[in-house]
């Protein structure tokens, strides 16, 4: 087990049991066995008594979180060189934790990858039902599913064409095949630009909300809008410059009045009041997520159904 999670060792001398050369029968059998092992685990869980279900989920969560907590609290090896061997069992565990780290961190990526399919599946279920039952706006659901299938097909075809020898050739557009043009048209021309449109539409809402709803209704709103005004004015080069030339009329470069240039006010406000205030909020959130992390890790939190 130690060697499985310590795959940092170069392949030539990695363990014969856990790994096998590419395409070898040992590898194929191993993969089949792992799959069967996993499916066997699922069937085993199907039979699990109702009472123990909460504990099974809690155990998986505890083990997953436990690795990172152990990684933090276990003393790290000082000045470790590539070919070092641990001096004592304690340091052996340290080496194992550190070597296993990139492998464990890919577990998060891979599982998140598998779960992504869940989101896509529920999208297809909702819109598929709307088309089949010809409900209101079924045509738009058809547009959604059709463009999704088209993009998936074009995306794979484009990625596939960029593998292998002619990869760098596709760097310049001259040798593009139709599939590359199609992918660029829908990816760069469609998806990316619509993304930008949705992000920028919020500027309109900010303006209308500012005009209709941002009122000096309380001390808080006043302090907030005053600070925002100073920040906005200091972002505008013209105003900062005009204010500065006004100040320069009143006093030379070393004069006391220089302390009241817009830039100095803004810098003082940022360093002396804004940073500690946001640091206070940040600490509130940080300690809050630490507590929520502990509650979730030890499955103390009751979440939903």
């Amino acid at each position, binding site marked *: 087990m130690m060697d499985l999670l310590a*795959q*940092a060792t170069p392949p030539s001398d990695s363990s014969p049991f856990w790994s096998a050369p590419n395409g070898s029968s040992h590898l194929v059998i191993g993969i089949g066995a792992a799959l069967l092992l996993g499916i066997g685990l699922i069937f085993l869980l199907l039979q699990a008594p109702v009472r123990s279900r909460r504990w099974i989920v809690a155990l998986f969560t505890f083990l997953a979180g436990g690795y990172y907590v152990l990684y933090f609290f276990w003393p790290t090896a000082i000045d470790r060189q*590539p070919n070092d061997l641990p001096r004592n069992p304690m340091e052996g565990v340290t080496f194992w934790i*550190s*070597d296993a*780290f*990139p492998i464990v*961190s*890919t577990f*998060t*990526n891979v599982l*998140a990858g598998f779960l992504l399919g869940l989101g896509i599946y529920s999208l297809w279920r909702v819109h598929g039902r709307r088309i089949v039952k010809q409900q209101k706006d079924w045509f738009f659901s058809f547009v959604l599913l059709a463009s999704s299938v088209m993009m998936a097909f074009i995306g794979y075809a484009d990625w596939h064409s*960029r*593998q*292998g*020898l*002619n*990869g*760098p050739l596709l*760097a*310049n557009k001259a040798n593009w095949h139709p599939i590359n043009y199609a992918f660029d048209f829908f*990816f*760069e021309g469609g*998806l*990316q*630009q619509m*993304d*930008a449109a*949705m*992000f920028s539409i919020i*500027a*309109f809402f900010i*303006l*209308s909300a*500012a*005009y*209709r*709803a*941002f*009122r*000096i209704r309380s001390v808080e709103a006043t302090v907030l*809008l005053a600070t925002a*005004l100073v920040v*906005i004015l200091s*972002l*505008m*080069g*013209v105003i*900062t*410059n005009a204010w*500065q030339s006004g100040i320069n009329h009143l006093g030379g470069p070393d004069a006391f009045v220089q302390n009241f240039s817009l*830039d100095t006010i803004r*810098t003082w406000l*940022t*360093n002396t009041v*804004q*940073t500690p205030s*946001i*640091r206070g909020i*940040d600490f509130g959130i940080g300690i809050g997520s630490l507590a929520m992390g502990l509650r979730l890790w030890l499955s103390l939190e009751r979440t939903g159904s």
Partner: protein
Amino acid sequence: MSTAQTTLGEKLQSLPKPALYLVLILLTSVPLLVKITIPNKEAKPSANFYTMVTGTVDPTFPAFTTSIDATKPVLIQTDWTTSTRGESAGQFKSLMRILMIRNIKFCFYSAGDPQAPQVALDYISDINEERVKAGLRPYERWKDYVDAGYFPGAEAICNAIQNNFGTAFKNVQDQDAEGAESSVFESPVLKGVRKVSDFSVMILVTGSNTSNIAIERIKSVPMIMMVTGVMGPETQVYYDSGQLKGLVTGLKGLYDMESLMDKDPQFKGKVTTLDNGAKYYPTLHIALLLMIIAIIIGNVGMFMTKKRAA
């Protein structure tokens, strides 16, 4: 009180929304045609970022002189896509121009968005076209820079990079000169890189909160960042505590970088210095003025109606 005043108070508070939107569209379009340069005073975090990557010390902040060793490669985490193109694209392009002029090799990856590596490659090819027109050699993939692709789960990859960069990027492949996929460690960029501290600096260009995730996990290499306006104040906290050695925030930060490049003989005349920042900054003035006027009109209208009612 005459009824005329109430209607004025009421009228001030009830301009129709479509009219407001139309005014905003006009005021963000017309000024784009006008080319005026705005006087600018660089903020300290932007100047520190500039000194870090270019080595040129900004006279207004003489105390800060740390800068990176141009022979070592740079690690870039680029998490932005076209959705924040307005700020991030300009920031990324100015960074690319600086690194390419100084012949600094870099490896970039993304932990924020599957589309981000593709977007970064597109902008690098734009800068290459610009360099070819200016008579400079284009930056070549594999020899000068490497694309390590996308890693879902920013927490995982940042932890892995800090723990052991060699194994974190062990399976990462990129197209070498002949087009076949081979390990990035064979590329001239990452030759001899084992730990994250072998990089001269780690630069994050992001439009989301991957900045917090990287700061929490990566600590054996100096870090500087280019973030969008929304993440500015939150990331400023890390600049003040020394966890960040430089910070470029939003369009103002971008314009700081561009005006510094414009004054720097390393870049002046050799490559475009004033780009998105200089184009958008004047128009931003007018949009912000409109915003301030809108708040003032709204509040004046409210006070007038409240005064009449009192």
